[in-house]
């Protein structure tokens, strides 16, 4: 197969997913990672040398390098200015989740991309887990009949750094992890979240953190399904693995226990000082990147749109509002 070379740049690499994304792109045939830029000189220099990707002096200089696309992996609050700067100068933008930290920012990004005919895709890699793809296939085939409820977790480890700075992250564990599972549920059921109630803990698991690190959401969907989601950064450093994405789906014909990333070998290492689960499952970030590159190559439409990013973020923002008001919030 011959491929037209796809030229991609990284605009902001503060989000740790940028490491996995660039490694996927660097091993992909027919893709050139042209360069990178980040406002933080120290992390930019380190990232650039680690992955052998040329560092540009400014976002503008990178955008002048005849790119087909950029990947925006900055701090959440910087998504909007970077996407607005890139729109119209590249064909496509892949923006890390959550799309933004406010509805106004997200809507502005969507509008600018639409006005400049720039394709905007949001990075929800969980959709590319082979287990999640298989789950959607089974649900679409009616395996469970009518679905009643979903009991979900997206546990994680406390990431530290800018993720815990409210002005940069926009929120803690609830914003960070709500969007993944809500996006998957919207995709599974072709439905919207209609109401959210949330109990949220600030500095509950990590004293002095200064941002929410635990959250329980109870929600209803427009198709009548109700469910809950645990978004807590509750996996301590001593635990076996960083976190999980679990969906327990109950319907009239049975139940599916999906521990979507549970393809692990167990490794006890004296050098590491603990027992860890090391994954052998397919690389979901590679799946996301392959999908994005194919979209550029074929001139297709994003599989995950800015609107998808906005809707998922709105659920997280509604959870914060619910916790403030102490009552369910309608969307």
């Amino acid at each position, binding site marked *: *197969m011959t491929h037209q070379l796809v030229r991609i740049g990284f605009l902001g690499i503060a989000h740790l997913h940028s490491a996995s994304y660039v490694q996927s792109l660097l091993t992909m045939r027919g893709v050139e990672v042209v360069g990178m830029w980040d406002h933080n000189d120290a992390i930019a220099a380190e990232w650039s040398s680690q992955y052998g990707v040329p560092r540009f002096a400014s976002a503008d200089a990178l955008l002048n390098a005849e790119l087909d696309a950029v990947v925006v992996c900055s701090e959440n609050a910087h998504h909007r200015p970077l996407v607005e700067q890139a729109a119209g100068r590249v064909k496509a933008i892949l923006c890390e989740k959550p799309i933004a930290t406010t509805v106004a920012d997200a809507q502005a990004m969507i509008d600018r991309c639409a006005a400049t005919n720039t394709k905007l895709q949001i990075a929800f890699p969980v959709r590319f887990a*082979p*287990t999640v*793809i*298989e*789950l959607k296939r*089974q649900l679409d085939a009616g*395996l*469970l009949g009518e679905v009643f409820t979903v009991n979900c977790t997206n546990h994680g480890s406390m990431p530290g750094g800018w993720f815990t700075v409210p002005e940069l992250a926009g929120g803690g564990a609830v914003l960070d992890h709500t969007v993944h599972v809500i996006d998957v549920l919207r995709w599974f059921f072709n439905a919207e979240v209609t109401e959210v109630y949330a109990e949220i803990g600030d500095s509950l698991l990590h004293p002095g953190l200064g941002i929410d690190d635990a959250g329980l959401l109870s929600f209803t969907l427009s198709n009548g399904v109700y469910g809950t989601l645990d978004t807590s950064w509750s996996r301590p450093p001593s635990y076996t693995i960083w976190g999980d994405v679990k969906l327990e789906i109950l319907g009239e*014909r*049975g*139940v*599916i*226990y*999906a*521990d*979507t*990333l*549970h*393809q*692990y*070998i*167990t*490794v*006890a*290492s*004296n*050098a*590491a000082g603990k027992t860890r689960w*090391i*994954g*052998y*499952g*397919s*690389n979901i970030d*590679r*799946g996301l990147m392959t999908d994005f590159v194919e979209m550029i190559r074929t001139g297709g439409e994003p599989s995950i749109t800015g609107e998808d990013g906005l809707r998922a973020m709105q659920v997280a923002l509604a959870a914060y509002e619910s916790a403030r008001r102490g009552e369910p919030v309608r969307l």
Partner: protein
Amino acid sequence: MQRIGLIGTGAIAAIHLDGWRRMPGVELVGYYDVRPEAAERAAQRYGGQVFATLDDLFAAVDVVDVCTPGTAHKENVLAAAAAGKAIICEKPLARHLADAVEMVEACERAGAPLFPAQVVRFFPMYKQVKAQIDAGAIGAPGVYRSARSGSFPRPGRDFSAPHYADFNLSGGVVLDVAVHDIDFARWCCGEVERVFARGLTFSGKEFQDHALILLRFASGAIGHIEVSWSHPRTTFRTRVEVAGNGGLIEWDSLDRPPLLYELYDDAHGFRRIGGSPTADEDEPYYAELAHFIDVLEGRAEPIVTARDGLEAVRVALAAIESMRTGKVIAMKDFGG
């Protein structure tokens, strides 16, 4: 563009063909089978043409994928080597050690690459076990333990050509199945020094075969391999564990799968179904065949060599010899 031809179009060929037909950069040209009607079926299902003779096949392809029963590996590999083709040969390389040696040496003399399809090295969980050992996570391996347990491949059932039930043709569960674990154990722990085994192979029990194999490696490590064709029908269980002087690695297919369905309806009753899907390119047989193409085209160093395939056969035959004689078999002196 590598042009691919298959010799043998039975059950394992179908798995290879599922890989070949979706692999970029290769062309699936056609088939030779001593049963032309089987080759015809493959051509109808997967495309490509049926060749009337091996020479016709060799004239049209770059890579020969030998998927016949083990007893026919030798003649086909020797012919493909003489024709100067790159060769993929299913495991075990041969039923008898002298045949395997002849095949490997003929390919080396002819300069024909010979890739033994030791697919366990391409299963993602086993790959990760090896990667963790190589990364030093457990220090030096000391005790290796693995299992591969299923039911007897009875004649007439799926994946059950009649030759499996004839020990003289198949070598039983040790040559057909343990050759996987022996190869993986060698990859993790190095060369095998001696072998002791007990099992059902010579018990006279019809449609039962099983073995418990003990290994001592040259490194000083020890190993235990269970292989079974006596477990309940429809079950298949694998597990691997490697204990080192700095840690321990475990994996067991009985652990919970990422997808677990519990269903009830009046037609089927209760069903409990597990699933552990992978991306298409990580499917082990696809990954194995794609790797061989990468090696041929200079993009990768071989993960497994013909000499590895040969040594796995030699250790498996030593285990059979140990079962037969009740003696410890030293690999240094063992000539099949």
